[in-house]
């Protein structure tokens, strides 16, 4: 029971991270080509300035919670994905530093360079996150101790000894890139005004079509790479509510965007991300990290879970702590409602 609860608590943290940091990553991607004037660039950055760091905290708190609840999973996955994680770290550093530098630099050429680096770092991060999730669904070559080491790339076919990037995980990366770009575009329709808002709104429809297409492709690709992912759905048919949720949120997104309800369209995108991640989690549960080397090497919930005492105490402080955390974030977001304004920076 504790295992079931903590599996979903960690999943909640991951969803929180993707939904929140997802829009500022998406804004970073769009920042590469959507903004034209200096004022637009500053507006775009101001729309995420007060909140991006708080959004990124979900990654850290989620990582900490994952480590706390499933130490073996954390140890195995982090050392096995050593090289891609180091690249992620460098991109996170690059992204944070360029965003902060942008507030301090007023030489045109440097601003262009920083904007470019910020956009590229954001783009690569979304692709890496998507690929990372696809790696977990596809499985990794675990040994008897529960460890592995993945090369950055091998052949492009998922096999017993795959690399980080193959055709399946690349699809995962594209899903994340498109879905988070759409998420970011919807955020801009809420926060930006004038030309920029119009351009962001025009981008929503093509992005939406691309997201629909890649969602369908990724669904069939997942079933092809990992047929067992359907088992949980057929054993518990109520879980088909998840794919229905994906479809409904995409439809709602389309509808609200057409009617100009920007906030509602953004929320629909949040739900889309939530259902996609919930679907992925449910397709592997109760396995945490599947082995390509044979199911007996899978890192399962039972194998990785911490002790009952720790998890019991943890449940108490987690609920209290996250209630506080969410209240702070609600407070911050409520201070910055409406269109973003340039010039309120530090």
């Amino acid at each position, binding site marked *: 029971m504790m295992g079931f609860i903590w599996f979903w608590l960690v999943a909640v943290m991951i969803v929180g991270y993707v939904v929140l940091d997802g829009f500022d990553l998406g804004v970073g991607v769009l920042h590469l080509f959507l903004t034209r004037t200096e004022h637009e660039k500053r507006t775009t950055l*101001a729309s995420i*300035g*007060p909140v991006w*760091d*708080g959004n*990124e*905290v979900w990654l*850290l708190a989620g*990582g*900490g*919670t994952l*480590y*706390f*609840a499933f*130490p*073996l999973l*954390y*140890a*195995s*996955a*982090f*050392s096995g994905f*050593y*090289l891609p*994680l*180091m690249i992620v*770290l*460098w991109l996170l*550093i690059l992204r*944070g*530093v360029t*965003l*902060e*530098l942008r507030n*301090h630099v*007023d030489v045109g050429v440097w601003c262009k360079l920083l904007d470019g680096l910020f956009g590229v770092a954001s783009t690569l991060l979304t692709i890496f996150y998507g690929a990372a999730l696809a790696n977990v669904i596809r499985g990794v070559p675990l040994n008897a101790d529960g460890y*592995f*080491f993945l090369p950055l790339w091998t052949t492009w076919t998922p096999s017993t000894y795959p690399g980080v990037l193959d055709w399946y995980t690349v699809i995962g990366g594209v899903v994340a890139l498109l879905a988070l770009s759409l998420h970011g575009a919807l955020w801009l329709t809420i926060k930006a005004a004038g030309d920029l808002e119009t351009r962001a709104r025009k981008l929503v429809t093509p992005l939406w079509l691309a997201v629909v297409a890649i969602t369908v492709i990724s669904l069939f690709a997942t079933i092809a790479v990992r047929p067992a992912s359907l088992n949980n759905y057929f054993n518990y048919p109520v879980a088909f509510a998840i794919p229905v949720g994906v479809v409904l949120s995409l439809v709602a997104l389309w509808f609200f965007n057409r009617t100009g309800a920007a906030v509602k369209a953004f929320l629909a995108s949040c739900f889309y991300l939530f259902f996609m991640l919930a679907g992925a989690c449910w397709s592997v549960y109760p396995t945490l990290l599947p082995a390509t080397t044979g199911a007996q090497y899978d890192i399962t919930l039972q194998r990785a879970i*911490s*002790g009952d*005492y*720790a998890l019991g*105490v*943890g449940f108490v*402080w*987690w609920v209290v*702590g*996250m209630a*506080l*955390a969410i209240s*702070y974030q609600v*407070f*911050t977001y409520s*201070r*910055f409602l409406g269109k973003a304004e*340039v*010039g*309120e*920076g*530090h």
Partner: protein
Amino acid sequence: MTSELIHRLHFAFTITFHYLFPQLTMGLGLLIVILKTMALRTSQEHWDRAARFWGRIFAINFVFGVVTGIPMEFEFGTNWSRFSEISGGVIGQPLAMEGVFSFFLESAFLGVFLYGANKVSAKVHWLSSVGVFVGSWISGFFIIVTDAWMQHPVAYVHLPNGHFEVTSFWALLLNPWALLQYMHNMTGAVVTASFVMGAVGAFYLLDKRNEAYGRTFVKLGVITGVISSILIVFPTGDLHGKYVAKHQPAAIAAMEGLFKTEQGAGLVLIGQPNDETGHIDNPVVVNDLLSFLIYGTTKAEVTGLDKFKPEDRPQNLPLLYYSYHIMAGLGTWFMVLMVGSAFLLWRGKLYTCPPVLWALLLSFPLPYIANTAGWMTAELGRQPWLIYGLMRTSEGYSKMVSAGNGLFTLLGFMGMYALMGLLFTVLVYREIAKGPEPAETKAH
């Protein structure tokens, strides 16, 4: 080079660079609360501008602390996976709590503090500075709890599969080692911030610009500096040292360069430890003082390194010895300089005394060195143990990550951090050059 050494260097280098930033964040967080409190109480523009000025420097420092801090959480898993697997049942607790209780708090209020001056009332803005301060200090606490468990494991059970599991939540959080180390460390953070603020103030006074602010910064820096420079030695350093002597006798023997067990052991002030001959070369020693400092009596016996098997002694004796002596030596200088400055401040002569202002200006890097040396003392003293007495450092690193890959990413971090160090210096220099007076022309 062996994998073990590379993984050790990897963690040591990234955490040393990282901790240059949080020590100022935590200390400056407190000083900004003081400035904001004065602003709220007096309603004078002067205090608010002073707070904004330090808020800008704080923001740069905070971002560098955040982005260099993320690798630390990752490296438990990437570079020290075996250790993480075995001890996750205990230290997963404080590490996860840091994320949940501290990071959300400080990041949420930092957004309001930096971007919300025109959007919230003065009281809420003051509250946001308190939120950032409290968040950063909570963060420090959970990290110290994690380290303290590695230094002095408490409240655990060793399971048959080799894993450790926590048995008492409160005993883990209230580990005496953690409380002592926390007090010592946080005082160290305030020392850093006091010296930085004092140095900026001294710079303005010596350069004859922003002099009203220069006086404020020197005054606040010296007042918090004299308090923290005394507290860092007594009682926090003293109590912490005695606790180390009790629970890690090999560490204290190596720190003090005490090769042979002695009654009435002397304190080595200066001298080079010679690992091969087992002597201190060129020593300057105060007789009986070490026995007195640890046990309160000059005749007490202090255990030397000879009582420990070679494999149970800290391996890098000279580095440990020098780190400790540099920390202690600089701590003495902090007290001398700050007590002297405080006296001149009280007599009303400090602002017009260039030699002391120069000393304040030039001393600002020293607390960074002292804090770093202090942490090196703690972590080198813990060797050869990863978890003191329970797990050796050689058992904890990621066996699946080869030395070559570790070296590649270590060099990557070194290059990136060199560039970031330069950027940080340029950015802070520009803020100091601009000064607290608003230019009114720029949005930022």
